[in-house]
């Protein structure tokens, strides 16, 4: 795959070759000074991202105040509480302050990197998020990677052999899984592999009460990872398959493919080295969008498999409502999506020379 592509004006450089192609293109097409163009581009995009971030921070505070429910009451619900106790709790949380004072405290704390302290857990929100980032990324990351690989691979195959049995079967299966409710599919997997076949654990990230270390720990975690990753992958790989398939179909009739074939390249090489790189662009956008969403976790899968992730933390916080946790996760999740979108814009410009004109 690392061989250089035969020079051809109609063939844009594949991602593997992106940087050098970019430099070449910059020299050729933007002789007045690519650096200035880039600077302006990045500044504009960064400015936009910053604006969004500020909006998110402001919105993060006010949006959740609309939620019904009194945190002090719901935290103590079902227990004997005196009005004095409720007042003390509200005071402890600063809920007895005017909204604008609370907002100011929220803003200044956030500038110091302090997302507040959870009402429910009595722990800093940064710590709560920090503890769950690892497990969340492990789950969503593995699932995203797997669905990306499966989706792209099947997608290009399906396009290349459009309207064959392979295409119809795989596109069909993918769309069926895509339409299946995650919750139901996950439970089905548990029912089959845990409840009936006793092959895999039914939930959690590691076997409780054990003190595994090293390889044994890895094996244990992977065993717990299998079912949640399968259910997440199954319901999501279709999006990559469909995108890859349709964008490759658009390239299929390109003259450069005929040229490639005329050079005597094997069919597989024509597809892999010439058609696919050109079809990847829409997928790149998709990947960055997915990357941004990874940290938010997957509430349903986390719930079904009792995975200690961020999605479930956020979901639980809604019922209190635990304002600091909601605000903190909202700002962090949105921040990452904004950053990823920003990066996507830059990468897009790097790999697609047409955008630089």
């Amino acid at each position, binding site marked *: *795959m690392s061989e250089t592509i035969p020079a051809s004006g109609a063939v844009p450089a594949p991602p593997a070759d992106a940087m050098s192609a970019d430099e070449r293109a910059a020299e050729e097409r933007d002789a007045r000074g690519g650096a200035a163009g880039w600077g302006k581009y990045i500044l504009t995009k960064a400015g936009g991202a910053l604006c969004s971030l500020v909006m998110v921070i402001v919105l993060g505070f006010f949006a959740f105040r609309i*939620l*019904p*429910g*009194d945190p002090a*009451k*719901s*935290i103590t619900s*079902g*227990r*004997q*509480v*005196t*009005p*004095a*106790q409720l007042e*003390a*709790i509200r005071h402890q949380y600063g809920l007895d302050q005017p909204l604008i004072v609370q907002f100011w405290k929220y803003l200044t704390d956030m500038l110091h990197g302090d997302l507040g302290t959870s009402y*429910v*857990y*009595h722990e800093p929100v940064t710590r709560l998020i920090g503890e*769950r980032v690892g497990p969340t990324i492990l789950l969503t990351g593995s699932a995203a990677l797997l669905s990306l690989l499966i989706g792209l691979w099947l997608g290009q195959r399906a396009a290349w*052999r459009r309207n*064959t049995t*392979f295409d119809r079967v795989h596109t069909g299966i993918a769309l069926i899984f895509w339409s299946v409710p995650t919750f139901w599919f996950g*439970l089905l997997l*548990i029912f089959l592999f*845990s*409840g009936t076949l*006793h*092959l895999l*654990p*039914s*939930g*959690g*990230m*590691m*076997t*409780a*009460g*054990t003190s*595994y270390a090293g390889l*044994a720990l890895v*094996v*244990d975690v*992977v*065993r717990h990872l*299998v079912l949640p990753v399968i259910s997440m992958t199954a319901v999501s790989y279709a999006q990559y398959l469909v995108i890859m398939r349709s964008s490759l179909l658009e390239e299929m009739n390109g003259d450069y493919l005929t040229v490639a074939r005329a050079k005597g390249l094997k*069919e*597989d090489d024509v597809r892999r080295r010439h058609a696919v790189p050109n079809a990847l662009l829409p997928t790149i956008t998709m990947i960055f969008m997915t990357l941004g969403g990874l940290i938010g976790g997957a509430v349903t899968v*986390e*719930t*079904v*498999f*009792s995975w*200690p992730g961020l999605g*479930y933390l956020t979901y*639980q916080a809604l*019922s209190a*409502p635990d304002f600091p946790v909601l605000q903190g996760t909202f700002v962090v999740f949105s921040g990452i999506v904004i950053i990823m979108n920003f990066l996507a814009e830059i990468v897009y410009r790097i790999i697609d020379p047409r955008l630089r004109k």
Partner: protein
Amino acid sequence: MKHRLLTKIGAAVAAVATMFAVAPGAAIAADSDSGSTLRVAGGTNYDTFNPFNATMASTTDVLTLVYDSLVENAAKDNSDAPGLAKSWKVSDDKLTWTYTMQSGAEWSDGEPITADDALWTYESIMKNPDLQTAFGSNVESIASVKAPDKNTFEITMKEPQAQNPGNVWILPKHVWEKQNAAKYANDKDVVGSGPFTLKSYDKNSGVELVKNQKFWRGADKVGFDRILFIPYKNTDASVQALKNGEIDYVSGLTAAQFNSLKNDPNITTYAANNRRYYSMAINPGAKDINGKDMGDGNAVLHDKKVRQAIVMAIDNKTLIEKAFGGYGQEATGEVPAVYPLYHWDASESDLTLAYNPDKAKQLLDEAGLKMGSDGYRTDKEGKPLELRLLVGAEYPNWVQMATYIKPWLKEVGLNVKVITESYSQVSDASSVAKYDMYFTGWGIGADPDWQMSINRCSSRPNADGSGQLSESNWCDPEFDKLYDQQHVEMDQTKRSEILKKMQQMIYDAAVNDVITYQQALVAYRKDKVTGWVAQPTDGGIYTQQNGYWGYMGAKPVASASGSSASASGVSPAVWAGIGIVIVVVIVGGVFFAKKKHANADDEE
């Protein structure tokens, strides 16, 4: 190149398959050297294990096993029983309670448990507002506490009360006085007095409790060496885990889950009488603490006859059967039957509001709600009448109940609009009396004093819903008189009589129609655990008790103790075999697929 890729995939698959094969054997080895373990499907959310701040049920269920109060609730009938105090007496003026501590009792670290520990605990809560989250209301009416000697602890009340004030968890002073008590996490190697101590807490693997070898009732009375609360976020998965042998006990089952486990040969299912009631509140015309009208309850409900008619139009037996799968006790008053001392054991003639649609129609006629041509009654001025029923969407039982109640009330001519919304919205609406009817429920403590207290006129809230808490926005000076009487009545028989009378008054007022005492549905591995002690002993709950009797009594089944091999029931050799088969199948499949692809490429 493709060949290499496929080889890699094959290798990865083989590695995964080996994991299937290896891990169960490893799990057995890790389990067997730590004695007998009870694995419970626990919650995933624990607020804090600091007993001053802990309020979530998941957390207090754990801490109940770690700490004792001076006075516990007996397993037999929830009555007061010796805890860290072996006896107590009340002074003639009913103001001073004197407790004699158990002799020779020790904390789990070997330090003696003395009256000083009780003194430190009570004083800390009374003096420091930051420590009142959990026990503030327990110490509210205490004037002072003192410890004249190591074995004697005295509580002096501001005014007499019948309820024993020795119901606060006593903490080890020698551990806590060195800490910032309000912030101390208390989630590792905890020093306690109960049958188990909290060894560790991890958000991923849950809570680990180990037997307290110094337990003052005798460590030999504790069945298991270790209890694990393993986090499960949904009971469907924990049901499968129970079948899979990953856990030994699961609670909080739905009727459908419970029924599905009934026929499993390794599992015992148990429907326990519980201490929780479910009801429908009817707005009698709420007034705030200053006697001003509040909320927007329909005016026709101010008439007791209309409220009584609504209660009579509802068939509680059918609701228990249909909405609770039959797993609920028939109810009378607010105190469930698991508290025989205070439960209103009403005779049939006492239950004047039992299901009777004809009588309901008659009462509505008497109240002047005339039947219109469309089959619905109008209000007293002849205007169309619509009553709102608020339903918390998170509770499937309630949603189902509403589908029965709406047609039943239509049958007697009342038009009901069912509004299903989040429970916090319902809760917000009810605290400012913006409802006609709504479903609610309460878990009832061992002493009903507090539950009754929130029905007093003085418990009505401020106009904005802040301040005091009123259970049903109802107020009757006669009820308040009875409350004051029972509050100071030291004679158990007399006090019980008054409390039953008070429940009857709430019943007759038709402001809170108690529909059922829902049963707790649990299941456990009969090949792993036995010896559960219920509270009350006759048909009560095993866990979530007022005390630690269930977990203390649970013990391993003799043949299964010390090994969890029976959980998987498959020998390592079989596992290895399965692993090999999977590898062969997958590798074979990959080669086959590769061959087929090559052919396909040739064709094109």
